């Protein structure tokens, strides 16, 4: 009995060893072991959802021979995850998906990690932000809202958002440029879903939730979309509420609030990898983007489907970092020495 078991296990080991050695024989580079896909945030958030979705799509369509393994490293507002990738020099089996904390965490906490310490792979999409108020509030447009904050009592308006000194609070600061001299009170919560509910329950006056976090309440007529923080209106024309589609939401700029902000959903890998290795992943994510599942996912979340790789991507990231730096400097969010 025992002998048979041991024999069988031994066979398995040999099989595994053979499989590993043949895999390396192929000409172009491809992963030789499971690829660790780091999410610099907790389970259940937007980045985590996207990572697990990618994992599923890649597995389902057989786009990669080795499995993609999602690992959450959200400690220190994501610094934990970025530090891990930074430290895995030359390891082509570690990827990280980014959210805005790629920029905000190093700036706000002074933790020594930067996007420059990692190899950029691709921008998958840009996540949108929309200014929401409760349907029962009197504000019909962004201009109404700005005017009310501006002429009302200082700090009386409560803006709910996810995290502290991160994207939602940065947008709040940017909005406050238009409401001088008055400021809003920013109340940080743990997740976007909770923030949307706080708005429905009237515990806050406004939010800048991502479309997917608020869409269900929008559909149910509980919240009103005032404007979208993008250059141009959304391209999705399917009606979500009785009379509005994503494309019917005006941009903030056209409604008199000159603020633009989008969140990077991009992929980076460890420093010191070869161009071959980066090319494999660029190709992989291009294949993902061509799947019908991905297109549906983009539409459900009303994402801006800009995909960038190479130099374009690097340029975009540099510019985004500058924007974050300026806004955070103005808001006094920078860590000492930054």
């Amino acid at each position: 009995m025992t002998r048979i078991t041991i024999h069988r296990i031994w066979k398995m080991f040999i099989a595994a060893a053979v499989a590993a050695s043949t895999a390396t024989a192929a000409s172009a580079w491809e992963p030789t072991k499971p690829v660790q896909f780091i999410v610099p945030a907790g389970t259940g958030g937007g980045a985590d959802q996207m990572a697990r979705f990618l994992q599923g799509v890649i597995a389902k369509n057989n786009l990669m021979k080795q499995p993609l393994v999602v690992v959450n490293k959200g400690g220190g507002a994501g610094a934990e995850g970025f530090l891990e990738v930074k430290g895995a020099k030359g390891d082509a089996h570690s990827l990280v998906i980014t959210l805005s904390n790629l920029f905000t965490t190093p700036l706000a906490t002074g933790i020594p990690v930067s996007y420059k310490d990692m190899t950029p792979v691709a921008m998958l999409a840009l996540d949108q932000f929309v200014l929401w108020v409760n349907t029962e509030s009197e504000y019909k447009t962004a201009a109404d809202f700005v005017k009310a904050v501006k002429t009302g009592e200082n700090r009386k308006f409560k803006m709910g958002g996810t995290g502290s000194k991160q994207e939602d609070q940065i947008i709040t600061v940017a909005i406050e440029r238009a409401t001088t001299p008055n400021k809003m009170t920013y109340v940080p919560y743990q997740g976007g879903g909770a923030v949307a509910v706080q708005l429905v329950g009237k515990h806050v006056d406004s939010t800048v939730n991502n479309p997917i976090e608020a869409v269900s309440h929008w559909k149910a007529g509980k919240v009103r979309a005032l404007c979208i923080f993008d250059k141009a209106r959304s391209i999705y024309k399917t009606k979500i509420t009785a009379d509005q589609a994503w494309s019917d939401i005006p941009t903030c700029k056209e409604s008199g609030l000159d603020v633009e902000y989008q969140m990077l959903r991009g992929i980076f890998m460890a420093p010191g990898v070869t161009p071959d290795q980066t090319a494999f992943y660029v190709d992989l994510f291009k294949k993902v983007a061509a799947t019908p599942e991905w297109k549906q996912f983009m539409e459900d979340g009303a994402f801006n489907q800009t995909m960038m790789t190479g130099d374009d991507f690097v340029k975009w990231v540099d510019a985004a970092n500058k924007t974050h730096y300026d806004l955070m400097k103005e808001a006094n969010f920078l860590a000492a020495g930054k």
Partner: protein
Amino acid sequence: MMSGHTEEDDGPSLVTNGTMEIVLAAVLMLIGAIAIYDSVNIGFGWRDDGPAPGFFPFWVGLTLVGSSLINLFQGIRKSSARETFVTKPQFGRVLAVLIPSILYVAAIGGLNLGPIQIPGLGIYLASAIFIALFMIFIGKESVIKAILVGCFVPLVTFFMFEKWFLVPLPKGPIEAALGLA
């Protein structure tokens, strides 16, 4: 203060309760002091929009120091202070599991002590060795049984975590040689 107490009749006793009360209270006071130190640095006041980040750690740290101080004095004064905390054979048995555990954890990930760097064995090999040696030397079980259990547990773990749930655990030279790392 240290373990050198004077009770002649209590031969195998190693440490008294009183001593351990003092040691633990002192450690807790130190932790409280760290909390206070840090909150003073980041601000512990009450700002106009509520407490500063250091407000809670400051007061909590202060309470920890205060209550530990009381525990310290009560620990010395209490009647049980002179009673035995642990006898020599008891302590020996605790060390018999504590020291192997420490070595086991060190063996998993290796150690990085500046000039001395010991590479880790990975969790599977370390676990196999730990279980087998523990069973042989501490548990006085038969060698064959020890080796069987020692191999079986890591193997089950390996398939469960690496293959089934796709959770990577620390690996070492064995897995690398087999192409599994």
